[in-house]
């Protein structure tokens, strides 16, 4: 039987539990700061994606870290598509120019196999960070943190594709009535790609050239993420697991290419040339009624951060309050890129570099960072999704965070093999070739041949092992 003393003790523990949790949450940041003070007066370099992303360490986290610890942070800005190259060049040359790294998770196996990244487990245990890592959403924590069961990076960006749609158009009674009469179902965010095409065409027919049904980024370097998602959701497999022969040129692959090609016809003229910024600008200006992209679109469409000088390049939103958020058609969105923080194996100041990334990635600091209006870091922790502060940033922020959370939970992993950048380049080239030639079969066949050539060059057995491990992950293929 429980005694009065035990009851009071247990009740006290329950009452204090949130405080303990808070103290523990604050500890990862505070522990890193305390431990790093011994390196005051030194400097560490960190590789960061050039542009808006790097405003975080340049304007916020870098100066803050220096203020707290006395360690200066030198931010080396590198365009996304050159980050892998620069990190490898630094490692190969032995220049040791970088201490901390931002890496795209699908490239981590390559960087680890090459020896460019430092395993972090010992530091994680030494500085008590393991518990806080559990707060990172499972999609990122389980898939973007480890290589061969060792921690090499802290997932630090909740990249995932969301469907954005114009609520004002979708909820217009006249549009709804006419659409239902024509297609026999309600005008609502599409749940498959056939619906997407029908809705897109319908809106274009009704509203172009003022507003077109949809627009995507169709040019290099990001166009392949949507292909990866759609191909798998339609039932496609990248390789035959036994022989490692490429199977993208199956009927599914060809069908996806044909559908993508057909969709361009109801999108604005020239959509084939659109990049991330073109697509953003056109959506914010109301030229497109649907688009699929990363989470920053949602913040900027709502006008969050519109007064920031750093966001002057973003066209003023014409659609604030009119944008809805939904899962992409077929419901399993591509996680698409992401970033993980790591430590360079050639760094001469690994511990200081580690402490900096622990502090950056901690619950406390990362919440502030994902709420910075001018950066591109997206919520990636459960505590971010649930943050009352974040949910109050604009009227639709709760719906936005809930959609990001669900999308992350259902997210499909980017293909991640040895020399993944070669496979990515091949996909980008195949898609641009598709736009140029209009020949889905030839383009997908060329992609398969290129995949096979890359696999042969890397080594079939080596690649098979990596592919099997990747394909076994829950987010690799839809169940």
């Amino acid at each position, binding site marked *: 039987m429980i005694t009065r003393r035990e009851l009071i003790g247990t009740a006290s523990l329950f009452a204090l539990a949130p405080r303990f949790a808070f103290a523990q949450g604050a500890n990862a940041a505070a522990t890193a700061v305390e431990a790093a003070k011994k390196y005051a007066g030194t400097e560490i370099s960190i590789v960061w994606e050039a542009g808006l992303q790097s405003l975080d360490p340049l304007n916020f986290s870098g100066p803050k870290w220096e203020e707290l610890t006395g360690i200066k942070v030198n931010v080396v800005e590198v365009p996304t598509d050159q980050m892998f190259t620069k990190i490898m060049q630094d490692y*190969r040359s032995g220049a040791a120019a970088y201490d901390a790294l931002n890496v795209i998770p699908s490239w981590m196996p390559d960087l680890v196999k090459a020896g460019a990244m430092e395993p972090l487990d010992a530091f994680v245990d030494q500085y008590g960070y393991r518990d806080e890592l559990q707060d990172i959403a499972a999609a990122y924590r389980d898939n973007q943190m480890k290589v061969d069961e060792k921690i090499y990076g802290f997932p630090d960006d909740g990249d995932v594709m969301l469907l954005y749609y114009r609520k004002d158009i979708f909820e217009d009674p006249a549009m709804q009535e006419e659409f239902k009469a024509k297609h026999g179902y309600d005008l609502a965010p599409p749940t498959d790609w056939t619906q997407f095409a029908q809705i897109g065409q319908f809106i274009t027919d009704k509203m172009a050239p003022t507003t077109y049904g949809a627009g995507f980024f169709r040019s290099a370097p990001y166009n392949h993420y949507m292909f990866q998602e759609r191909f798998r959701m339609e039932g496609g497999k990248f390789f035959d697991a036994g022989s490692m022969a490429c199977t993208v040129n199956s009927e599914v692959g060809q069908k996806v290419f044909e559908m993508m090609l057909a969709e361009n016809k109801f999108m604005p003229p020239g959509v084939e*040339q659109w990049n991330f910024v073109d697509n953003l600008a056109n959506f914010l200006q109301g030229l497109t009624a649907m688009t699929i992209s990363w989470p920053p679109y949602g913040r900027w469409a709502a006008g969050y951060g519109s007064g920031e000088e750093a966001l002057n390049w973003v066209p003023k939103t014409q659609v604030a309050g009119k944008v809805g958020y939904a899962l992409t058609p077929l419901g399993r969105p591509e996680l698409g890129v992401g970033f993980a923080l790591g430590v360079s194996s050639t760094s001469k100041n690994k511990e200081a570099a580690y402490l900096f990334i622990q502090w950056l990635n901690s619950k406390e600091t990362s919440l502030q960072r994902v709420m910075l209006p001018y950066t591109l870091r997206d919520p990636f922790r459960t505590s971010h999704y649930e943050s009352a502060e974040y949910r109050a940033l604009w009227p639709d922020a709760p719906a936005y965070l809930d959609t990001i959370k669900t999308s992350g939970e259902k997210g499909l992993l980017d293909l991640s093999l040895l020399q993944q950048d070669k496979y990515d380049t091949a996909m980008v080239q195949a898609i641009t070739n598709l736009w*140029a030639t209009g020949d889905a079969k030839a383009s997908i066949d060329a992609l398969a041949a290129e995949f096979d050539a890359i696999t042969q060059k890397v080594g079939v057995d080596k690649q098979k092992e990596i592919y099997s491990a990747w394909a076994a992950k829950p987010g690799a293929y839809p169940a």
Partner: protein
Amino acid sequence: MTARYNRLSTLIDRNFGRIAAAPAIAVLLAVSLFPLIYTIVVSFQNLTMLDSDTSFQGFMHYRAALFDTRLWAALGHTTLILVIALPLEIILGYVLARLFLEQLPGRQVFVALLVLPTVLSPIVAGATWRLMFDVRFGPVGQIVSWLVGEPVTMLWTVNPTLVYPAILICEVWQWTPFMFLLLLAALSNVDQGQLEAAELDGASGWRVFSKIILPAIRPVLVIAILIRGLDIFRIFDVIWVLTEGGPGTMTETLSIFTYQIGFVQFDTSYTAAISIMVVLALTIALTWALRRVEALK
């Protein structure tokens, strides 16, 4: 002692030229010969992103290069640009130079303005033309639409029939002024007496050009062709900004291909083998061209 000193002194006197040039030669060897030898060595190894295999691999990469269809396609694209852009630059440069031979009012100002594209960085030129060709905001499409009288969608960097014209327009726009400047200088030195005599004799325009002007400007023209030819052969920046070698690999030149496999995919030894093959091919072509020039003299 004195005899020894005298011998040393004589030796130095005799070889003073060699001794004085030795430091410069050493520097040249260090910065040019060493990388060349190192590249040759690497081309026989197997250095990739994942392997640092320095064992001798024979001609493996050279053989692979010979059967690499993408490499041959890249060579074809480079050659295509070379054989169209270079003659266009020469012809347009010559026509402009002839126009500006006359002492027109404001000639100096116009010459300075004409030369502006050449002083731009090719990256800036490419970025500028990318904006010019933009399907929504670019003036090129708008002008064409205005001329045609209806909206025209021209996907300059996507449509296979437009992508090479786009590259060539940018290339020719930027480098014709270079040809113009050299040819203007060369034409200024053509013997006016001979031209007047030919005119009095009633020689045709072609005869005057082929018998008087061309021989006079040939030395400058040959050098200009060599400089621009080599430049176009290693064309990178403009295409990188305009198309990144796309759509697909349709505009991938040798330089872009080499960059991709060397610095993006880190096939270091294969890249070294290709570089050596290109250097060899260029050396042979250049030697042949220079001999032809010598023979013409």
